[in-house]
């Protein structure tokens, strides 16, 4: 119980917000808009799954936004050339994995600090994309929309896929040896090495996995609209990291889980629609989001302080 304090408190906070909305803005609960909201957040959730792994492994990746953009544009170009989606999706995931592998090699292979490495790749990828594409949009063929399914089916597919990934990763992190290795490496890489785990390999693989998930998420976003803007992933990294951290994944590695991150993501995702529903002016949004992040960590800090001394 004590161990999962943070996950529980975030879930409670989420519950409170949802309850408040039920009281003051019951219109929030309409199936179709909620499904739309879920669909919009599904790609973010997929990226968050990968980010949880990376942060538990005591690393961070701030280049996911740029990776997302690069994958989106490349996947869109392929789709525009007439590639079937069945090939575009794996191609995008593979490209993402490749970009993740670059980070992985630099972080795990050369033992460079991940925050700086991914800062560098973030800038490099983003500017490289701008240089090559000069900000041009890509128009997508009709067949790409919703995987060529009907809209409702497409939305359910996306939300279902994201949730399935969440559950799969959540279970794997708890019940697969590989998942526990990520925790072990994040807690103490040297101890992991002495226990026969290969920390560098694990670190490399979590970056690759995050990249692949980002590539996948890019296609999940792609099918939602007839056009792709190259700035599509801008700011995604902060959104995902904030959600993961609010959900109780410790930035110092080794602690936290996917369920908390999920709750954190839902909490932050609710802010913007909640403001609209409560008729609060838009210019408060950033301040409120910042306050939520701070409140979440402050609550944790106060509790730990009390507990320790």
């Amino acid at each position, binding site marked *: 119980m004590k161990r999962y304090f943070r996950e529980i408190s975030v879930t409670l906070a989420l519950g409170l917000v949802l309850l408040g909305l039920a009281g003051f803005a019951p219109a929030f609960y309409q199936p179709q808009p909620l499904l739309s909201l879920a669909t919009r957040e599904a790609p973010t959730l997929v990226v968050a799954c990968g980010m949880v792994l990376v942060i538990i492994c005591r690393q961070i990746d701030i280049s996911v936004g740029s990776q997302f953009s690069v994958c989106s544009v490349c996947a869109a170009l392929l789709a525009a050339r007439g590639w079937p989606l069945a090939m575009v999706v794996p191609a995008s995931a593979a490209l993402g994995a490749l970009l993740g592998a670059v980070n992985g090699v630099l972080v795990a292979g050369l033992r460079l600090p991940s925050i700086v490495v991914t800062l560098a790749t973030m800038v490099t990828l983003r500017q490289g994309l701008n240089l090559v594409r000069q900000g041009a949009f890509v128009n997508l063929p009709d067949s790409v929309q919703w995987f060529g399914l009907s809209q409702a089916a497409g939305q359910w597919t996306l939300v279902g896929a994201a949730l399935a990934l969440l559950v799969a990763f959540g279970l794997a992190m708890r019940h697969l040896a590989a998942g526990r290795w990520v925790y072990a490496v994040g*807690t103490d890489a040297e101890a992991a090495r002495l226990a026969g785990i290969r920390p560098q390999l694990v670190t490399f693989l979590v970056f690759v996995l995050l990249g692949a998930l980002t590539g996948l998420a890019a296609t999940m976003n792609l099918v939602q609209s007839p056009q792709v803007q190259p700035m599509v992933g801008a700011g995604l990294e902060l959104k995902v990291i904030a959600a993961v951290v609010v959900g109780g994944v410790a930035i110092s590695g080794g602690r936290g889980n996917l369920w908390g991150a999920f709750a954190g993501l839902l909490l932050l995702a609710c802010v913007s629609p909640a403001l609209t529903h409560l008729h609060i002016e838009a210019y408060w949004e950033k301040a409120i989001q910042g306050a939520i992040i701070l409140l979440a960590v402050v609550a944790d800090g106060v509790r730990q302080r009390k507990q320790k001394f």
Partner: protein
Amino acid sequence: MAAASPTPSPLLSLRRAAKSYGGVRALRGVDFDLRAGEVHALLGENGAGKSTLIKIITGAHRPDAGEITVAGRTLDGLTPALAQQLGIACIYQSPALFPDLTVAENIGLRLEPAGAMRRVDWGARHRRAAQLLQQVGASIAPAAEVRTLSMPEQQLVEIACAIGAGARIVVMDEPTASLTQREQERLFTVVRELRAAGVGVIYISHRLEEIFALADRVTVLRDGQSVGTHGLNEVTEAGLIKLMVGREVAQIYPPAESAPGEPVLTLRGVGCAASGVHGVSFEVRAGEIFGVAGLVGAGRTELARILFGLTPADAGEITLNRERLAPRSPPEAVARGIAYVPEDRRRHGVVLEMPIAQNMTMAVHRRLFPGGWLRGAAEQGLARDFIRDLAIKTAGPDAPGGSLSGGNQQKVSLARWLATQPRLLILDEPTQGVDVGAKSEIHRIIRQLAKDGLAVIMISSDLPEVLGMSDRIGVMRGGTLTAVLPGGSPAAAVMAAALGQNERPDPA
């Protein structure tokens, strides 16, 4: 070289092993072998290369030269994983555990097979952990997070891992350094059981009496070279010491000389709810060494942390030189003339990345650098003086603290606090992991300080040390001071107080 047991081929042998760290030649061609069913002690001064040798055996470090043969197989690239497969288990000087994970998981990660896509059986993990912990006699919950355990408890977890691994070679690097008598006895039982089962045990310790009680053979290292392997029945304590340090060292405690003066520190009913300390009352006089004995977890370190302002007291009254003292932070305590040499020197005692000189001046910034401006010459001078006075083995004042061996790090930590010219010196396990030569050196220094009028509190789990050095002995149990005995009290009396009046020391 009489063989203690007639086994022909060794379990493990090492030929001409060499290893350098940058410029430091830690090992220069050591031969070593271990037979099945023996306890082979490894002995040597601080920095002689013992830890390095075992890091090679466990695959944690690759040797620069030489070869390792395990069970007749010559190994080229030994890795921790391979070593584990070959049945080599190790209990490091500082436990290599995962602090954020539970005890059960720590044990599981070490013992379970390698497959990455294997399903984790949590129930089996917990059952196994509970059983192994029971085997080493530790009362630790398998579901507890390791970060909440004390250092010796963590060591017991390590031992449980080694036993669970069914290792044929078990390496123990100073396992008793922070254990008290009772745990030590339990550990010995475990080691003897291992030996009886045909396991080869490599045992490193600075406590000679342990080695004589436990080991079959001993290899002595000096300056990275082996100076001989002997059966324990062929050597005497004095002979071993001479082998180690290359000279004679008297292992007697320097006598108390001066009569204690005015009370310097007085505690009345001091407690701190958060750290579980309560109702501690005693006083320490100028020129007196006040020893604090007790079992692991008795609260001695917690008491020191209260006095140093790390966990401020919330009950009782402390006076220092007749003035009220209530330090809320270490800087306050330092300003009042309190010095604390902590027990965990790698984490707290020295900053490993910083030069020795900077480590030594860390607590005297105000005095040494008036106005906050650094003065390189003053710093270097101070460092050189201490390196000379405490005979610290190092390349120079600019060498990083991490390049020193454990014992020398301890001396740097001591130097830092001596530089503050404190009124009250608190030593927590001052000679833990320190070789005999350096140990008697440190004892001499402590005694000299007391003679100069300093009040000293010396916390130690080394019973002979407490008995030999202290003018008075405080015994702690369950977070409070249960008895204050005169110096030179019999060991049995101290143990009785530490265990509680009704209990008798467990003979096992």
